[in-house]
């Protein structure tokens, strides 16, 4: 599962770090450090973090099922490289 946090938007509320501590951690008072890649076991926790972020700063794909990115379901052959 790939993810990215728009840190311009992130306000350091630490909701995500509370819900998915293996993926999101705080570094100091306000700085968020996150892993841009999360294993499948983390899916549910990441989905909760995405939903809970008060400023919707987290984008993740593959939240709906193993392997296939949700937003990119039905990805055609050219995309697979």
């Amino acid at each position: 599962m790939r993810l990215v946090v728009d840190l311009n938007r992130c306000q350091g509320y630490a909701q995500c770090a509370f819900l998915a501590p293996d993926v999101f951690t705080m570094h100091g008072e306000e700085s968020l450090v996150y892993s841009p890649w999360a294993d499948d076991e983390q899916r549910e926790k990441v989905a909760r973090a995405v939903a809970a972020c008060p400023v919707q700063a987290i984008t993740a794909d593959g939240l709906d099922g193993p392997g296939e990115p949700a937003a990119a379901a039905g990805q055609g052959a050219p995309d697979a490289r």
Partner: protein
Amino acid sequence: MPAEQFHEWLRREGRIVVVGASLAGLRAAETLRAEGFRGSLTMIGDEPYQPYDRPPLSKAVLLGKAAPDRTDLPRRRDIDAVWRLGTAATGLDLAAQRVRLADGDEVPYDRLLIATGVRARPWPKEEEAQLDGVFVLRTRDDAVRLHRRLKAGPRRVFVIGAGFTGSEIASACRDQDIPVTVAERADAPLVGALGGVVGAVAAELHHDHGVDLRTGVMVTGLEGSPVGRVRAAHLSDGSVVETDLVVVCLGATRNTEWLTGSGLGAGPRGIACDAGCRAFDFRGIVTDDVYVAGDVARSPHPLFSYQFLSLEHWGNAVAQAEVAAHNMISASSDRIPHMWVPAFWSSQFGVNIKSVGVPSMGEQIMITQGSLTERRFVGVYGYQGRVIAAVSFDNTRWLEFYERQIETGAPFPVEYPTMDRRPEGRKAMPADFPDPSLPTHGPTVTLSGYSPADRRLVFTPSRH
């Protein structure tokens, strides 16, 4: 074909080519599809990878919280593109509407988006730059190599340049107890981006975390061992620092060489475009079919006296890509301007640093919240009597308020009361930026071109 019909045709079966398959390229492609573009889409990138994210490379990756080869950008949607990865674009034929590729192929387009970004400026002495143990940090490959060396436990890391990247690397080293020396030509870190007042706070951060910070010095040379491994750095004050790992953080160079001779308004400062992301040709006339987005673009911004801004900002790449994509497939009456207020973040020594606006345009600064000594504050920059930028150290929640102040041209010095305002924050002081005609590395915002308000035109030749 009448304009309206043309755009309908373009959306249905036009050919769009994106050169530069990274953040701006990907977000533009997604926007094109989201807005109903059904034609063919070709993504050309010289790196062999699908688009990945760079900011973690100097943060989470070096802190060991992310693998360097696992920062691929998530997809917002399926973009159904033909990917030409690992293939550089080498030329552009504006008249024939074709992009030339390194493998000899040519790709025709009806609309072209250029998002070739920047690359790290290498250590200028070529032989020394080749030494084993000398690195830059821009790409995933750079990060993989640097990460491997850091894990091997170097005796000392030597960082050249205390801009954002250099400071973040130093911070990550200290976090893992790796001894690190940072050499900076200016009198403090981050001076090019945030000025001397804030730079002094950054210097304290380095000192408190045990960084051996050397300011006001130049690195005069790197010394190699007989087997070609770097072993020492020589400084202009005569000192020598023994090191087995050097990271060169001297800012970036825009990837525009491939456009030489194309007739496009492209040069070392980027590709000039209008506020709608349409590229200029070398005569300053806007093109109809070539668009620019991200780090490689320079565009005029009404909020900042129509100065041309080149921004090396993640958020700018996203916002500009979305505007460019929209405009590429829209008739002129539906086009939108790119009026993003510049915003940037950095994370170092456990402090969250953020800025909005263009600090380097500021003449004066006021600390409107918190205090410098506590390293938790908001600094507001003033230019010709109005608020032009703000920076926060561990105070991110307030930045949105200051963004509005910038957008509305609020007066400076700042008179309004704010939370946590201290007596020492009531007076403005010089923001203390270095002479703009001197090159600094890593300012991340570059003002280029002149302000029409100045009524003068000065040609400042610039080298790569």
